[in-house]
């Protein structure tokens, strides 16, 4: 469809990956040309002129996802999924352009590293992967009075779904909650399945189990004992263990 017949609009979608793929579908089949793409949560009507709400369609999303895997590549689909979870305000615009370019160029799109959009989206995806990977190690759970393990995090990106997958496998037989304080969201796992819920900003942390303090004390002591005095290197330590992660980590809190 020639672009001059397209309707240029500011697209708003529901914030899910399926919703985003529905936007891509609307571009190819409904003549929609996004001037900007925003999710409903972050949507600011004041700066938007022609807002156009895309209704999420499971079927359309599935079609686009399959097309990405088949006509571009599985890697591109994975990159898109990760970059989608990043946080800069223009992430959806960049991702949209990346996918459109992918359909044009095909599976070699990822070789175009000198192309700014390709480079940018890959970088966003890497940052998401990196932050999620770090949190798979830095998450700290506390046992609560209900025997549920509670963990608070404060990530830059929307990595809760990646963490949910990781811990549902690793800590399969215990109930846990991971609370993303930055995005006011939590994932709750009951020993079988998990679900995402919204959390109020002022939600206090749950009360701790009786022996929790003692275990935390043992860990903190263990952590402090491991450091070798002669090797201490504060500069390197700050680089490798950034301060922003430390707020929620037992060994740095106590």
């Amino acid at each position, binding site marked *: 469809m020639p672009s001059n017949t397209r309707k240029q609009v500011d697209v708003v979608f529901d914030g899910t990956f399926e919703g985003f793929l529905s936007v891509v579908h609307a571009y190819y089949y409904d003549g929609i040309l996004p001037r900007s793409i925003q999710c409903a949560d972050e949507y600011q009507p004041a700066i938007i002129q022609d807002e156009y709400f895309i209704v999420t369609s499971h079927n359309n999303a599935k079609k686009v996802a399959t097309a990405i895997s088949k006509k571009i590549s599985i890697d591109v689909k994975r990159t898109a999924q990760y970059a989608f979870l990043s946080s800069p305000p223009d992430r959806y615009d960049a991702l949209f352009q990346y996918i459109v370019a992918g359909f044009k160029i095909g599976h*070699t799109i*990822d*070789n*175009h*590293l*000198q192309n*700014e959009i390709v*480079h940018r989206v890959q*970088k966003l995806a890497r940052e998401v992967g990196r932050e999620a*990977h*770090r949190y*798979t*190690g*830095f*998450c*700290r*759970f*506390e*046992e609560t009075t209900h025997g549920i*393990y509670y*963990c608070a995090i404060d990530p830059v990106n929307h990595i809760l779904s990646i963490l949910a997958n990781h*811990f549902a*496998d*690793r*800590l*399969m*037989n*215990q109930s846990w909650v991971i609370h993303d304080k930055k995005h006011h969201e939590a994932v709750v796992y009951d020993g079988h399945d998990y679900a995402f819920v919204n959390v109020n900003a002022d939600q206090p942390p749950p009360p701790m189990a009786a022996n929790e303090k003692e*275990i935390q*004390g*043992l*860990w903190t*002591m*263990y*952590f402090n*004992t*491991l*450091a*070798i005095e*002669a*090797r*201490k*290197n*504060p*500069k*390197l*330590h700050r*680089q*490798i*263990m950034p301060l922003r992660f430390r707020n929620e*980590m*037992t*060994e740095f809190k106590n």
Partner: protein
Amino acid sequence: MYAKNDKMIQLEQMNVLNDVGGNMDFAERLKTLTEGAKYDVACTSSGVNRKGKRGAVGSAEACGICHSFTADGRCISLLKVLLNNYCEYDCQYCVNRRSSDIPRASMAPHEIADLTMQFYRRNYIEGLFLSSAVLKNPDYTMENLIKTLALLRGDPYNFNGYIHVKAIPGADDALIRKLGTLADRMSVNIELPSEQSLTHLAPEKSKSSILAPMKYVKNGITQAKEELARYKNAAPFVPAGQSTQLIVGATPEADSRIVHLAQGLYKNYALRRVFYSAYIPVGNDKMLPAAPTPTFDTGTGLTHTAYGPILLREHRLYQADWLLRFYGFTAGELFKDENENLSLHLDPKCHWALRNLDKFPVEVNRADYAMLLRVPGIGQVSAERIVKARRVGKLDFTNLKKMGIVLKRARYFITCNGKMAEKINMLPESIELRLTDNHSAGPYGQLTLTDLAHA
């Protein structure tokens, strides 16, 4: 032979070496047994992928996960602890040697198992790294290690996370086999890089008592892999491979000998990792170098950590090791003769490049992947990006920058379409000067996180 302390005698009489509380509380014993374990620098949890399973706790990720970092910048991924530190041996470099004046303690298998689970459920750790001082004799010690791991892997703990265990030199093969079916990784530490040093400083150990279990583990791994290829349910044996540690700076061996030794270990024993540990004096022993005295710089008002040079040397060894494992270098290429040390002010790749300037500059648009990897400043990620990107178009310096390739050092060694980044004098001295023109960064200026994080 030596004076046993009261505690040891009492323990031997009671023969209850497995559940000793004594008058130390649990926290104190944990502290003591952590102190005894912390000079073993290996703390990686990598090498094996294992999904979680119903009824069990834990999984393993081949890439490894760091759960925290110590104040000295080392990755913490395992609960690294000794079963006990009552050692019969007297290795001079070791804090647990029998002549060392330290508090002694031990933990019962169920205490280790409980603690591992409590830490694991809170995601403090990726698993357990268990070792032990030689209590009574190697076999007896191994039996205790086996007992502990068997407990942790069995009901009701059902621990499915990562376990690294240190085998005891001189132990029976059957015990090594048993231990290897319970652990993911096994290590036998060589510690001293030559037989003379070993005889001198670790009289109860010998090269053969160390190498024999390594050979055994290597063969076991090969066999298990073959079996696994044939039957799906074959029992795994040390699936994450074996590693060892070398102490650097306690004895006079030059880096050349150390790197050649490492190369031999990778080749002949299929080791996954060799770890290097800068010798930090533990107790004043006359046979070993003493702790350096810190110096006060009146100019800057700073006290310099006198360990800088030895830590930097350790870092250079990790870099050289990296070149062996991932960059296609051989030890022979890095050294002129066996008494040579790595340069402290240039990383080993730069140093090699300066000695081999006739191989440079390389053309980014044509050089093969292996040669790109040899360019100072170009790592695996950059080399891969270059190879990918040039398939869709010629690359110039602006492209390289856009692709996120750091040219700070690489610029002196590459051309893009026949052109260099700037006109420079291709004399070793002139390039060397540019490469080391980074005084403000100090000796740690070139530390890379990946090297250290997995150190």
